[in-house]
């Protein structure tokens, strides 16, 4: 678990993703993250590098050298990853490490290292050590690493730095983000069709733009299928609070919610909803095993989509330390950086296909259409570049009645990043509501 992107827009304080083991009470006894362990991960892969790849690489090298680009070879790269949590957190850092492993698989022979449980304030000494060890690409995956990475980047102008979920860049620091807004919208379509009471429960971590964007996208999806559906939100004010998630879900059941989604770092909501057989949507990792019969779908991240693109562009000389000030990834379905589903490849849990396929709605633009067809259509539209459909498209009003987007207008990336308003069918407290 780690610092999620918390763009410094809006009045909310930045809410760092604390390590999972931070006690709620006396700070004196905080468990210190286990001493970060450096691990080499590439020795095996190196020996497996097929000769053909080497040949192709050499060929590509010669070719592009002719074009005069600042070429680099794979052997030349040493990439280090800094994670804020343990890779065993089954959440944020775990997902980042899956990305790193997929990257190594994509580039056999690429040497990578990772350090887990890096305290956010101590990122610089770790960078010093990594640079001393010869690493020339360093990627930090927590919002809170930002200041440390930027400072280190000034001291090491020849090293390329990447900052996941970050917002500030420099000549040798790029930022990247895989975002779920489109996927939450798709989940919302399903939730709207599945709720019988018309109340959908949503357990959310912090009222920051990222989470608000996800709730809104979800709520807009739900109302597209079921104009009467409301999304009732309860806040944990923590990324990791299993007891809080349990009681928040119970409170939502008390309000009549019968379908559940969440943005926090435990599978608690799924487990609690399942005790009464209520459908839910998994978050970040595949949480289907926690309740195979009630998890409808969810959102999955593929950080490797971005990482592979970065490494390709470093290899062909597009990215060098010095020209990264404008390199900012905000990728969604179109780039395969995120995926909809309860597990990879399963968009809708087969157990729910009948209910969703049988639910035919009268769509204002598309006429009579089954919910499954609508989901697949939207998925298709958002999976192309540029996306043929944007969930935040006018006419769209916030719940106070203000027009946010007029007919034909859509949200820009900056507006997505700074979202503070609440969608019309969202209920519950909403800090910093404009």
């Amino acid at each position, binding site marked *: 678990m780690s610092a999620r992107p918390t763009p410094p827009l809006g009045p909310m304080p930045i809410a760092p993703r604390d390590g999972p083991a931070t006690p709620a009470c006396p700070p004196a006894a905080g468990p210190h993250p286990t001493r970060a362990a450096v691990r080499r991960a590439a020795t095996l892969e190196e020996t497996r590098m097929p000769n053909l790849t080497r040949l192709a690489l050499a060929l590509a090298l010669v070719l592009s050298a002719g074009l005069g680009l600042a070429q680099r070879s794979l052997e030349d790269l040493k990439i280090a990853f800094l994670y804020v949590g343990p890779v065993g957190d089954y959440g944020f850092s775990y997902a980042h490490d899956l990305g790193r492993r997929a990257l190594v698989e994509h580039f056999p022979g690429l040497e990578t290292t990772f350090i887990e449980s890096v305290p956010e304030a101590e990122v610089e000494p770790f960078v010093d050590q990594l640079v001393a060890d010869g690493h020339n690409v360093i990627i930090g995956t927590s919002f809170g690493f930002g200041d440390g990475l930027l400072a280190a980047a000034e001291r090491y102008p020849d090293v390329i730095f990447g900052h996941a979920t970050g917002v500030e860049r420099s000549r040798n620091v790029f930022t990247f983000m895989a975002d779920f807004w489109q996927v939450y919208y798709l989940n919302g379509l399903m939730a709207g069709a599945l709720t019988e009471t018309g109340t959908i429960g949503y357990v959310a971590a912090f009222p920051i733009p990222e989470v608000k964007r996800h709730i809104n996208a979800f709520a807009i999806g739900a109302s597209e299928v079921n104009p009467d559906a409301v999304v009732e939100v309860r806040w944990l004010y923590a990324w990791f609070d299993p007891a809080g998630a349990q009681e928040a879900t119970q409170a939502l059941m008390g309000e009549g919610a019968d379908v559940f989604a969440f943005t926090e770092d*435990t599978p608690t909501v799924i487990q609690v909803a399942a005790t009464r057989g209520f459908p839910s949507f998994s978050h970040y990792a595949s949480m289907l095993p926690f309740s195979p019969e009630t998890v409808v779908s969810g959102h999955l991240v593929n950080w490797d989509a971005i990482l592979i693109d970065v490494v390709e562009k470093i290899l062909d000389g597009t990215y060098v330390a010095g020209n990264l000030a404008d390199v900012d990834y905000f990728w969604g379905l179109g780039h395969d950086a995120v995926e909809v589903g309860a597990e990879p490849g399963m968009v809708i849990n087969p157990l729910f296909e009948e209910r969703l396929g049988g639910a035919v709605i009268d769509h204002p633009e598309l006429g009579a259409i089954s919910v499954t067809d609508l989901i697949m259509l939207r998925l298709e539209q958002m999976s192309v570049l540029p996306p043929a459909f944007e969930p935040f498209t006018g006419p769209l009003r916030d719940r106070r009645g203000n027009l946010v987007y007029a007919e034909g207008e859509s949200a820009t990336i900056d507006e997505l990043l700074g979202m503070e308003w609440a969608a019309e069918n969202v209920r519950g407290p909403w800090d910093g509501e404009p």
Partner: protein
Amino acid sequence: MDLDVLVVATVARALAFATPLLWAALGEVIAERSGVVNLGVEGMMALGAVTGFAVAFVTGDVWLGLGAAALAGMAGSLLHAVVAITLRADAYVSGLSLTILGLGLSALVGRAWVGRPLLNPMRTVDVPVLSDLPLLGPMLFQGQHLLTYAALVAALVAWVLMFHTRGGLVLRSVGENPAAVDAAGLPVRRTRYAAVLIGGLLAGVGGGYLSLAYRPSWGEGMVNGLGWIALALAIFSMWHPLRVVVAGLLFGACFTLAFRLQTVFPPELLTLLPYVFTVLALVFTALSRGRRAFGAPEALGRPYLRGER
């Protein structure tokens, strides 16, 4: 939501949330009554949670898991007992170390079980007869885990043993005036050991409830501060087993209401209340020192050495 529905739901959820607190706080009350403070509750609960989950996962038997959880908590407390009682080191430092050790160790051994669901967790049950009572039935005796009902019974048993048996008298005397107990030829050290070990056992059960019943899974840091709340509870209850239940329900109600009343009431204030109560209880305790009815065990936190004053 109607008021009576809200009240019933709040009490029921408060009890579910408070269950691990009750177990751990009862254990702490027993340990502190013998004069040994143990700040390692958080660590012992974490050890109990991870061990219980691992054993239940491997054997498929939650009750075996619960037994293992209890033993794990006890093993942690043994460490504390040796350091704080036999070696007479500072009990506060020793307890804190136990918390840090327990959290670290549980994270380490728990790696293999992160993100894995328990297929046969503890199920909720209704208490026969009592669950049919109007109001009280749905509040206290419906849809809870066995460990929740057992916690209520345990509090009752602890109260009887502590205040109505000779052993209980010895326990309390050791906590008040170990020299007098020693002079009477009764075992100070053995009593303290027993109290601390029982405390660890109960904390382990509390941890087991978390990973086997309340949220059947293991995740690093899943105790998430409950051990510290249990410590506060021991103080707030003024070291009395029955008041632990009342205080636990109060803490639990604040916690669950923070979510139920989020729309009308700032949740931070409600989650803060238990700690305000605890501080008030401490102040009250300090002011009423000398009036024996409310004070903390007189020898709390002081190692005992024969002949030393």
